[in-house]
């Protein structure tokens, strides 16, 4: 932690001192989420979503470990182990399953908000480039984990989703088909694919947890960013993480968990697809194959390439889809504006909201059945996605005149009421204008 006023850990209880002298774990926790981590005092609620992502990762790991105890990783047994034994005979098995299904959706939901918060407030800029990149690594791991988890119940969408997504690799000439067969362990999804997906689906969340530790570690070097994007200057600009942000995260997490509980208990299948309640059948292709909602924008980009121009359309689609995420790694070098926060960048701000709308449109197009008009809208939206990041953003950052930044975080919070900013209990000099009032 680079703030000189971060308080060193002082054990209050002799037992804690005893532990701290032998294993400085209490010191580590105190420095990470206690008084040892000063946080800008002006964070808004968009800054709550990182902690929420951590909460949902924990929920997924805990429910997932118990679910694995009841799962049969075989093509004959997987569907019934989930839909018969777990849902009917295991005590509260339905709760575990629905909590895990919807937990994945909520994990992605809060992560998307977290990513867009980073995009708006320039959290990818120096000195937080590695925080951003580690976050993208987490996101890629989440996508792999989410995809493989959806295959496990071995329903129709599981099977055909696996077929389509591993089929991406066969778009590459020469090496593509061997890679696909190697990944699946066969010519089509079957027992070999199911078993290895189960194994990796159990492994990857722990890899995610490890990268989350690196993500937080890298964050705690420069400290959290803030809505003004102005660097922290002195102690007045910060508050210790505990109790201030634990309290703020606490109540907000309660509110989001309430929303999660309502979906889990009262509309558990709303975010799923009915076809996944039909056992996998390699001989019957569903009318339209769609992945889970959190992949829809990328699925729309994939399907938007419909012309064999030099390369086959499918290869264009696959390249564009992979690149649509990879380009985010270069963001710190694409957007060179020295101003971090979008609040002080009038032109950037407009394009940012256009991007949000664009991604929502891509999401809708990716989830809906195909027709010529939807494909056309998807093609325009996909083109905007690439132009936004690779053409518009560098131009905006070069030509935009940002608004004047506040001198400090404290000033931005005070809105010109600096005279009243005396610490609690301290007497302020009375001024005429105030004395005449009331």
């Amino acid at each position: 932690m680079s703030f000189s006023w971060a308080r060193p850990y002082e054990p209050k209880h002799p037992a804690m001192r005893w532990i701290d002298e032998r294993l400085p774990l209490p010191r580590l926790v105190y420095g990470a989420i206690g008084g040892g981590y000063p946080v800008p005092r002006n964070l808004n609620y968009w800054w709550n979503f990182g902690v929420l992502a951590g909460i949902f990762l924990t929920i997924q790991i805990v429910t997932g470990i118990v679910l694995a105890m009841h799962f049969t990783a075989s093509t004959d047994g997987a569907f019934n182990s989930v839909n018969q034994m777990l849902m009917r005979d295991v005590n509260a098995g339905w709760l575990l399953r629905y909590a895990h299904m919807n937990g994945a959706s909520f994990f992605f939901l809060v992560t998307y908000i977290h990513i867009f918060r980073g995009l708006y407030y320039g959290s990818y800029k120096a000195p937080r480039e590695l925080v951003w990149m580690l976050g993208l690594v987490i996101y890629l791991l989440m996508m792999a984990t989410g995809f493989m988890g959806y295959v496990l119940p071995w329903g129709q969408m599981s099977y055909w989703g696996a077929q389509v997504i591993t089929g991406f690799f066969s778009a590459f000439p020469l090496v593509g088909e061997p890679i696909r067969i190697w990944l699946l362990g066969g010519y089509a999804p079957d027992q070999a694919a199911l078993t290895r997906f189960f194994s990796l689906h159990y492994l990857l969340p722990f890899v995610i947890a490890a990268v989350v530790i690196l993500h937080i570690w890298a964050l705690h070097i420069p400290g959290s960013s803030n809505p003004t994007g102005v660097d922290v200057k002195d102690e007045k600009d910060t508050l210790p993480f505990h109790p201030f942000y634990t309290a703020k995260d606490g109540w907000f997490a309660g509110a989001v968990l309430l929303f999660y509980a309502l979906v889990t208990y009262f509309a558990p299948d709303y975010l799923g697809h009915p076809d996944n309640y039909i056992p996998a059948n390699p001989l019957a292709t569903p009318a339209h194959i769609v992945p889970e909602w959190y992949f829809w924008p990328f699925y729309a980009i994939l399907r938007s390439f419909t012309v064999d121009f030099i390369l086959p359309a499918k290869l264009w689609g696959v390249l564009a889809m992979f690149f649509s995420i990879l380009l985010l790694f270069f963001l710190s070098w694409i957007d060179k504006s020295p101003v971090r926060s979008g609040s002080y960048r009038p032109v950037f701000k407009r394009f940012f909201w256009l991007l949000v709308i664009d991604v929502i449109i891509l999401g809708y197009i990716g989830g809906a059945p195909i027709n010529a008009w939807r494909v056309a809208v998807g093609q325009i939206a996909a083109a905007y996605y690439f132009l936004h990041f690779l053409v518009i953003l560098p131009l905006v950052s070069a030509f935009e005149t940002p608004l004047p930044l506040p001198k400090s975080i404290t000033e931005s919070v005070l809105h010109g009421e600096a005279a009243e900013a005396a610490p609690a209990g301290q007497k302020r000099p009375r001024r005429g204008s105030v004395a005449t009032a009331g």
Partner: protein
Amino acid sequence: MRFILGFIGAVFAGILLISLFSNLATYFTNPPAPLAADEFHKEPKALHLSSDGVFGKFDKRQLQRGFQVYSEVCSACHSLSLVAFRDLAKLGYNEAEIKKIASDWKTQVPSINPDTGEASTRKALPSDVFPSPFANEVAARAANNNALPPDLSLITKAREGGAAYVYSLLTGYANQAGYKNEKGEELLKKFPDAKTPPNLHYNPYFANLNLAMPPPLTSDGQVSYGDGTKPTVDQMARDVAAFLVWTGEPTLESRHAAGLAVAIFLLIATILAYFAYQQVWHEAKRVVRPTGALDPKNQAKIRRAKGKAGVAG
């Protein structure tokens, strides 16, 4: 680096524009033909069951009637392979009744002869799942013009529209000759090729309009209910749809009850946590503004500022 990335972006956008033009060109030069299935397919009719909604609970008498329809009509072709006879206890049947239902079931359970080891069958026990009416898929297709009657355990979860779809399908068979949609267009005049092939049955609630299943509920009184309910076709369809909601989700009631308790708990916890947050931040916020928004001094200031800006209120 920015030039290389910008170039890549322009290439992708360019290919997308070429795709867009070719897509639109195809659409206008060779517009897709309208499909009978698009224009004559109907969304499911509304169906309200007591299990709907946040406080939804099963109507056990209706489930028993629905089970009766399943056992007397549907079970001739459709299996229920995820449900066991013992599960019927949740419908209000007692142990003796369940034993009798299982041992009287028209299909027996595959077994082996304990003396010779040869394949044979035995009477079902409460611990058995409902035996399939056909020995295997080939036998099922052979008996049904090569169509496979789906297992019904999860049917209300596996179809868009759920129970309403099942109810609509069962009551939605129509005579194709002279059939008109809501717009008054006559199917066979608009799409003469869409005539239902032999051995299929016209049903606008089915995705491609032609269903292999012959109408299963054909006349009122096909099943005689013990509880005095009038067994109209509509009533039987409703009852069996309700029963199939139960087979798909037998834990629905405990889910609703637990959900309510969890929601109330989280609501109270969140409110308490919010007050704790206010309490914790009170101190920090005072550094910014020594008194609250309700302080007369601040009120006066707000009024003055509003007056200056010409804002009312």
